[in-house]
């Protein structure tokens, strides 16, 4: 069962490139370490002092520094795939596993094309020494870019194996078939395992440009629900996350945190800490840390340090939205502030519209709060550095380390063990840099695990924002003019998919009071919340049903299909108990189409809002692993509940006020509604990633349902941190 199946139209893999994106973590490096003495003379001797110059990098989605693109991918099979003498197929990718189960679905892709059992495949992921360069695991890019890449590699390897067998048996390759890890010649009834053909040699052959894939209609491994391939390691506690790594002779590190953001060290007394046996104290600029034989002693040493910090007055969450509007950057030369979408004349059409509506929406900063906080183990060997850490960008963190310690990137190895989640929050290498600095001083491997409070405070946040919409309608409910301004939260999902002739859509970057960066679905959550809430407000203006109103203004067939599918499954238009409301929201993001219907119950006396039921219809092309897709959709909705209902970072004068799980409320079991998922499998469309877009319809669906139940329109996320006040 091989040959060269042709690729159906529309299934060509996308080139591996990043779409221009959104917002960037515009933070300079946290530390400017002094070169150590030996290194300082080395640098002087060479006549150059390489200072990592910080410049605003181009508008890629990723948060974090050392953005690099254009690095060409290796084109030989051996860089990506190796067939061992025991028949194990080792696959190398710079993508990383943070719970999205991409280790499993990428294995399915390779197994399919190579015709081997999934359990023969071993994925080596996110190791900068072993895997090809990769920008990072974000933006739902793994399925649309790395899957086709690995399928191409596996298909090339498969063709090569057939060639090897054909040469060996002196038969035409056309009559050979591959199945279950063997090449067979049905005529002569000969067959050989891949391992016997390759004999452990590296496959140096080039990946053919014309390598072709098995189309989704003929998939037998993909398109099926394969459970997490190494799930047993996790339910038995055997898997070693970054924070579980240990090395012989390893010390435990702690870093002294300033009392506020942007504080600088005014005075320091470490003498008491230094008197504790076996403790190393490190002071380098504003960086102060300790290394001790145990984490308890490290904590004790940290507490013994006397430090005074100089702080500056900073904005607080109470004045956040005024601050963002006031500090908007109006110049148009920064690229991301330029005109995003302009068509027709909004002003003229608005003036002559039958109905006009103008509204403003806000979203708060929220924290990713991955259950495993940032962690790293760093080990120096001379000038070479190895760091195990949890990051979505191992190559980016390699760059951060090289810059921080003024060493060439090839001297740094970053290894990313499968990590306790990220949600866009682990693009940066703070813990890696800190652990490496401590290890250099203590002259032993050092492990640093951030506390929950550190993770809440010193990581970065999903951007807050203000969104203003102004639209005009004809009496028949046709939207004729659409003006949309987003301040700070980002550009993802900013464009409207409704068919509106006159449009003006702008993103305005502003100064951000907090360090901000990527977050699952980025600003698509904010932009969809505003747009889809506003659509409901418009529908009410012309007494139209929210579904009918959307469909009237929407031509896109894929999006119409998910709205209709969600509404049907949900029972849109059906009866509801008293105090309950129905709402919907949906959209298009990262090549995924989603529509969400929600039912809420509002307790009139207490104002308590309970989300009772959520139906999500989702379509992202050909489905690779249906149950994992459902898992991602359910998970996205539950994570999204927090930001929709109650999550918000409170801050004052450079301090986070609710940086613990006891004061920052995340969704818990009692918050979880009944979740139903409708999957639309489009085998004629290339598979898109699905880690992000399923959650974008949730917040507006809930907001619209609250309004349906109570008549109260909520225009800020989170919507009901303390229950529904005005109900």
């Amino acid at each position, binding site marked *: 069962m091989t040959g060269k199946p042709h690729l159906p139209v529309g299934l060509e893999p996308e080139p591996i490139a990043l779409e221009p994106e959104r917002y960037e973590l515009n933070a300079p490096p946290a530390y400017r370490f002094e070169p150590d003495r030996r290194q300082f003379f080395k640098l002087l001797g060479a006549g150059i002092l390489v200072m990592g110059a910080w410049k605003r990098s181009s508008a890629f989605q990723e948060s974090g520094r050392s953005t690099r693109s254009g690095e060409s991918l290796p084109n030989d099979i051996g860089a990506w795939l190796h067939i061992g003498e025991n028949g194990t197929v080792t696959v190398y990718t710079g993508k990383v596993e*943070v*719970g*999205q*189960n991409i280790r499993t679905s990428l294995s399915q892709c390779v197994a399919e094309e190579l015709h081997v059992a999934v359990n023969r495949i071993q994925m080596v992921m996110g190791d900068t020494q072993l895997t090809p360069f990769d920008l990072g695991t974000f933006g739902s890019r793994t399925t649309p870019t790395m899957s086709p890449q690995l399928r191409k590699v596996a298909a090339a390897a498969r063709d090569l194996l057939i060639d090897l067998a054909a040469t060996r048996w002196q038969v035409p390759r056309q009559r050979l078939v591959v199945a279950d890890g063997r090449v067979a010649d049905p005529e002569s009834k000969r067959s050989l395992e891949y391992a016997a053909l390759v004999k452990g040699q590296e496959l140096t052959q080039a990946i053919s440009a014309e390598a072709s894939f098995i189309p989704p209609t003929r998939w037998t491994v993909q398109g099926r629900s394969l*459970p*997490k391939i190494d*799930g*047993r390691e*996790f*339910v*038995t*506690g*055997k*898997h*070693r*996350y970054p*924070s*579980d790594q*240990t090395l012989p002779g390893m010390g*435990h590190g702690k870093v002294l945190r300033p009392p506020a953001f942007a504080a600088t060290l005014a005075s320091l007394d470490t003498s008491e800490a230094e008197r504790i046996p076996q403790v190393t104290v490190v002071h380098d600029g504003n960086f102060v840390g300790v290394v001790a034989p*145990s*984490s*308890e002693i490290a904590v004790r040493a940290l507490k013994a340090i006397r430090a005074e910090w100089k702080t500056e007055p900073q904005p607080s969450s109470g004045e956040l939205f005024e601050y963002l509007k006031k500090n908007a950057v109006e110049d148009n030369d920064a690229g991301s502030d330029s005109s995003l979408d302009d068509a027709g004349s909004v002003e003229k059409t608005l003036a002559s519209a039958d109905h006009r509506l103008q509204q403003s929406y806000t979203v708060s900063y929220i924290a990713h*709060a*991955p*259950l*495993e*906080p940032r962690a790293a183990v760093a080990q120096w060997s001379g000038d070479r550095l190895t760091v195990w850490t949890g990051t979505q960008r191992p190559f980016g963190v390699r760059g951060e380390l090289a810059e921080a310690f003024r060493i060439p990137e090839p001297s740094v190895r970053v290894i990313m063990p*499968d*990590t*306790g*989640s990220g*949600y866009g929050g682990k693009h940066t290498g703070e813990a890696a840099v800190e652990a490496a600095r401590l290890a250099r001083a203590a002259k032993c491997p050092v492990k640093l*695990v951030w*506390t*929950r409070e550190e993770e809440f405070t010193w990581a970065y946040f999903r951007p807050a924002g203000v969104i203003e919409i102004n639209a005009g309608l004809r009496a028949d409910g046709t939207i004729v003019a659409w003006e949309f301004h987003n301040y700070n939260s980002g550009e993802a999902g900013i464009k409207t998919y409704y068919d509106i002739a006159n449009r003006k859509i702008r993103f305005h970057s502003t100064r951000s009071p907090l360090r901000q960066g990527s977050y699952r679905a980025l600003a698509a959550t904010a932009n969809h919340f505003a747009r889809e809430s506003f659509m409901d407000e418009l529908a009410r203006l012309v007494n139209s049903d929210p579904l009918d109103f959307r469909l009237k203004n929407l031509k896109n067939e894929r999006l119409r299909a998910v709205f209709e599918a969600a509404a049907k499954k949900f029972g849109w238009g059906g009866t509801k108990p008293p105090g309950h409301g129905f709402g919907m929201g949906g959209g298009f993001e990262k090549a995924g189409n989603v529509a969400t219907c929600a039912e809420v119950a509002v307790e009139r006396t207490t104002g308590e809002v309970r989300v009772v039921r959520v139906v999500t219809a989702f379509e992202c092309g050909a489905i690779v692993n249906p*149950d*994992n897709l459902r*898992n*991602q959709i*359910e*998970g*996205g*909705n*539950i*994570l999204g509940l927090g930001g929709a209902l109650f999550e918000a970072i409170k801050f004052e004068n450079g301090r986070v006020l609710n940086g*613990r*799980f*006891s004061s920052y409320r*995340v*969704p*818990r*079991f*009692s918050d*979880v509604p009944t*979740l139903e998922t409708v999957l639309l499998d489009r085998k004629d469309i290339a598979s898109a990633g699905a880690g992000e877009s399923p959650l974008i319809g949730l917040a507006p669906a809930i907001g619209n349902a609250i309004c349906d139940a109570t008549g109260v329109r909520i225009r800020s996320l989170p919507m009901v941190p303390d229950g529904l006040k005005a109900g």
Partner: protein
Amino acid sequence: MAPVTNLNVNGSSRTIDVEADTSLLSVLRDQLDLTGTKYGCGEGQCGACTVLIDGNSRRSCITQVGTVGQKQITTIEGLAQGERLHPLQQAFLEEAAMQCAYCTSGMIMTAASFLRANPNPSAADISHSMEGNICRCGTHPRIVAAIQKAAKMLNPTMKGARR
């Protein structure tokens, strides 16, 4: 307080040497290399560090090792019997009740304690008992389904779950 020199973990007596006020979590992880028990918050709010002490679930991050005495500690590493997984472990796999799985040990240990006292729980009972455990990936419905499945595996004679 005198240092603690001995701990009963997963059926064997282990020699340690730590101050009595050291958290049980760091003794398990750093002294005994039982890293299946996770740090998540350090304040007993997330449940990632849950272990069994004499069969009852306890937050090891806020349990001082000096208070454990000769009681039996069970961690996730001690739940399976040889190669045979505990029904909860098996059910979590079958229901794909995990994504990053960092919360999984704590979920399973909390559920193990709960099922001992509630052999035939409803979904609402389970949800209520798991309220102190955080899963950020959002696999809650699957975790509830897995615990219900495990309950049936543990008590095959029970006639259908209560509603």
